[in-house]
């Protein structure tokens, strides 16, 4: 059996009105909405496509690091085609940066021994583009970032991937497996979960692991195990945008004037 590990993140988006938390180091949790990271819908879909194309058994394992609330994104992964879902949590993990999270995911990978790890190229909330490649170093595995094409059959010794460079330039990379690839938007068209699949996912087990089961100590995670620490969050100045007010008609009339002035110049 070939396993593909798909690390996923429950990302946070701000409500229209939000406040900075009292200690100044994050947004008030009441002002956040959560969802499965958009990039992870592509990495998960890619894993499911490999499974569907394989003639031998492939198991897609979705894994996340976080408290119980994260079960909802794992259930979304199960509904979209993951075979198993794993969640790692311990209070000591709070405050972890992506490098510490990657260390935890490496523990999961050592346990699961996947042939391939498909991570999102970045997360939609903080966009650090760090976890997947940090994970590859924690495992000492080959890696390719920002992948928009993948030729790999379950059990293959190597994968041919296309990475996407600036300006739409592409480059093929031939990489030895097991490897960690970070998946870019657009590599496939992620499927929607059917109602039936969502119902079935609700009843599937989620395996929960602690640090001890992964052979990690408390000081390897959290702030102590991180490469950076959030000192302060602040609402940025809104730049120079001059807001056009009024009814939709008045706003459009001002916009029309801007266009006419430009065309007359």
């Amino acid at each position, binding site marked *: 059996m070939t396993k593909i590990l798909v690390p996923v993140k429950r990302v*946070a988006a*701000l409500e*229209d009105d939000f406040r900075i938390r009292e200690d100044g180091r994050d*947004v008030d949790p009441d002002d956040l909405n959560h969802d499965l990271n958009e990039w992870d819908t592509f990495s998960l879909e890619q894993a499911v496509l490999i499974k569907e194309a394989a003639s031998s058994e492939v198991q897609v394992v979705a894994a996340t690091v976080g408290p119980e609330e994260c079960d909802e994104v794992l259930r979304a992964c199960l509904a979209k085609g993951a075979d198993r879902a794993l969640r790692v949590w311990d209070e000591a993990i709070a405050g972890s*940066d992506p*490098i510490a999270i*990657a260390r935890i995911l490496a523990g999961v990978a050592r346990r699961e021994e996947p042939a391939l790890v498909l991570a999102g*190229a970045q997360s939609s*909330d*903080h*966009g*650090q*583009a*760090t976890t997947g*490649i*940090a994970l590859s*170093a924690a495992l000492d595995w*080959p*890696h*390719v*970032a*920002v992948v928009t094409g993948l030729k790999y059959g379950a059990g293959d010794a190597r994968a041919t991937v296309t*990475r*996407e*460079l*600036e*300006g*739409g*330039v*592409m480059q*093929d*990379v*031939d*990489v*030895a497996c097991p490897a960690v690839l970070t998946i870019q938007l*657009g590599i496939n068209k992620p499927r929607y979960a059917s109602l039936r699949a969502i119902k079935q996912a609700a009843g599937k087990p989620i395996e929960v692991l602690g640090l001890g089961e992964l052979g990690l100590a408390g000081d390897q995670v959290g702030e102590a195990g991180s*490469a*950076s*620490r*959030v*000192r*302060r*969050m*602040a*609402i*940025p100045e*809104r*730049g*120079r*945008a001059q*807001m056009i007010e009024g009814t*939709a*008609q008045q*706003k*459009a009339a001002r*916009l*029309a004037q*801007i*266009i006419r002035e*430009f065309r007359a110049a």
Partner: protein
Amino acid sequence: MTMSGILILAEHRDGELRPVTFEAIAAAQEVRAEIGDRVTVAVVGSQAEAFVPALSIAGVDQILTIASKQQEFDADTAEAALAAAMSDCQPALILLGHSVDSMGYAAAFATRHGTGFATDVFRLAFDGGQLVATRGGYGQKVNVELDFPGKRTVVLCLRTGTFKPDPKPGKPPVRSLAPALPESRARFGAFIAPEASGDVDVSAVDFVLSIGRGVGEEDNIEQFRELATKVGATLGCSRPIADSGWLPKSRQVGQSGKTAVNCKLYIAMGISGAIQHLAGMKHVDTVVAVNTDSNASIFSVAKYGIIGDMFEIADELRKQFE
């Protein structure tokens, strides 16, 4: 040994240094006084010395050329070469670009060497003797200030197009390093230029009306194409629209698409303003953003902002041109 000074690993592709290398040199000048006053630029390749003339600018105190088997980027080679340069000059700060190449090895380097690490940094400062790096959070809606307690060396990947280079000639000494570099576990092939689609090229035009995710579905594209024609603009788009195949890649504005280099008026409708999109249009003189979300980061680069529904504004705008 106390770490001091700044190390920059130059980024190059297809025989050209990437602009972010000069941006990193500019960023280094902002903090060099606090961090130990020496800026080293290392460059890796089979013909690394070819970049010495271009890197010989004021503000660079030393150039290190590192010989590798191949000229172009390779993640394992870049990581090992950066390790050799770090061990040579013991820097307190390493500056890279937040580019696709750096995304391919910088986090691996930081993990392996236990350095401080942050990406997409757009501001560097010192506070009470501590390095503070600022980046965006929650879809660029807040600024996140990071520090790096206990780290002897900090690696920062800088947001591209942020620090302004002002290169003046200089004559820094050049040294060569010949570290034993590992056999790469990946083979990086030739560069493939984007296909010419025969459709318009948004980098060539001066007026772009661009649509993003707010457009909702493919059937809604046509009315914006008609609106663009009506007002004399070329229809552009953000990544999700091109990824969905609703418009060709040649109309996509942003880091992985086109930069709207000739654009003077850019109307962004239903585009929230991911940094990758902003990279392709934030330089435009007049940006007008239309978005329902008053916190959308597109408003931070716009000259004029309209909070409202893109369909409603489009309908009214159409009437203005009838």
